[in-house]
């Protein structure tokens, strides 16, 4: 499925959009990490929590948990939230 990538992570993907697959958000982010090593840890910490200034949206709705299931035609958007000056 298509994943919209925020500018802060373009150093990994070299693009604002990536293709990745997974039946859950967790699996999708792992697939992104397989393609772009290191990208997951910049978004998800070692306790498997989404970092403070990262937000994940599925079909326009904020996702609360990495266990959220995905369908192949879902749109996933990764957003860099406000983080100060």
């Amino acid at each position, binding site marked *: 499925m298509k994943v919209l990538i*925020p500018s*802060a*992570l373009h150093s990994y993907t070299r693009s604002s959009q990536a293709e990745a697959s997974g039946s859950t958000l967790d699996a999708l982010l792992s697939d992104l990490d397989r393609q772009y*090593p*290191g990208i997951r*840890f*910049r*978004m*998800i*910490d*070692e*306790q*498997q*929590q989404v*970092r403070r*200034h*990262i937000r994940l949206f599925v079909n326009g709705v904020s996702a609360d948990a990495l266990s959220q299931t995905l369908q192949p035609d879902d749109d996933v958007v990764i957003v*860099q*939230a406000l*983080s*100060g000056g």
Partner: protein
Amino acid sequence: MTSTALLVATRKGAWIFRSDSGRAGWSVDGPHFLGHVISHLVLDPRDRTTLLAAAKTGHLGPTIFRSTDWGRSWQESVQPPAFAKAPEGETGRAVDHTFWLTPAHSNEPDVWYAGTSPQGLFRSADGGVTWCGFSSINDDPHFRAWMGSEKDGTPDGPKLHSIIVDPRDPAHLYFGMSGGGVHESLDGGETWQVLIAGMNVVEGYGFDAANPMFHDPHCLRLCPSNPDRLYQQNHCGIYRLDRPSTSWLRIGKNMPGEVGDIGFTMTVHPRDDKTAWVLPMDGTEVWPRTSPGGKPAVYVTQDAGASWQRQDAGMPKEQAWWTVKRQAMCCDSHDPLGLYFGTTSGELWMSRDEGRNWACIARHLPEIYAVEAVVL
């Protein structure tokens, strides 16, 4: 002819300044990682080639970058410092940023140590590509209690810092925790001893000076010319420790009373264990963390702390409210020694004559977090 390089880490990126041994003029290379928070940029003194940069951004989690071509290209750590995953149902810790980087002993090529915020100690055995935590620190209940919570640390998070390797013994390590005291290992980090005797705690609150939790060492330095001597700038004064003693002596009592002995950074002379420099700051009332009275100065001791002399020639005489963070003052190894510091207001200052005269060599940088000088 030797060259001198300054590795400058800032809140918004990193810069490398270069000069010859005369250090009269400087060229600038940067920014590297514009917009990234760079806590420390360190050259490996063993191969004099590998640079490690501790990085994060406002949005993204922490990582470490590595370069072997002086920053023309960077590779990210495959496994940056990270705490162990907490058991199900428990709340674990997550590294916010790597704060401190220390190359290990000269007999241990590719080994590095890292200190993080929240406090953790990590080791790499492959030049910074992968990192593993010290369970003897990061998961130890005593250390966890001494670390306190995020409310107990510095404004941008409690830090493990000042990781020091005894140049005579790769297994002899020291580090400091803000807060949490000073600690020493003689077995490469398997076991640790507390090293806080003689250190004061904040008065008036009934804090137990025997509890590491109440101690806040800001910066530890070991004298290369005498590895049995350490100096410390602490939240509560300036200290010296001469091993095998385990009791720190508060040499800051000999500072001028109107200046006091509060600050963050400290630098020791590489060839003279009686000479060290501090850069005092205002630690009164609400802790302004500025130069005292808006009049910055370095203070030097040349008798191991028995007396201190003000060195401010060339610095602003009034209305200069910056200060210097704990990693942001250092020296090179030339003779006469060059001293350097970077300010919270983004100025880079140097002295070519061991502190007698100062000049500003760069302005308008972001807030400077760390400065390291290397002679190549």
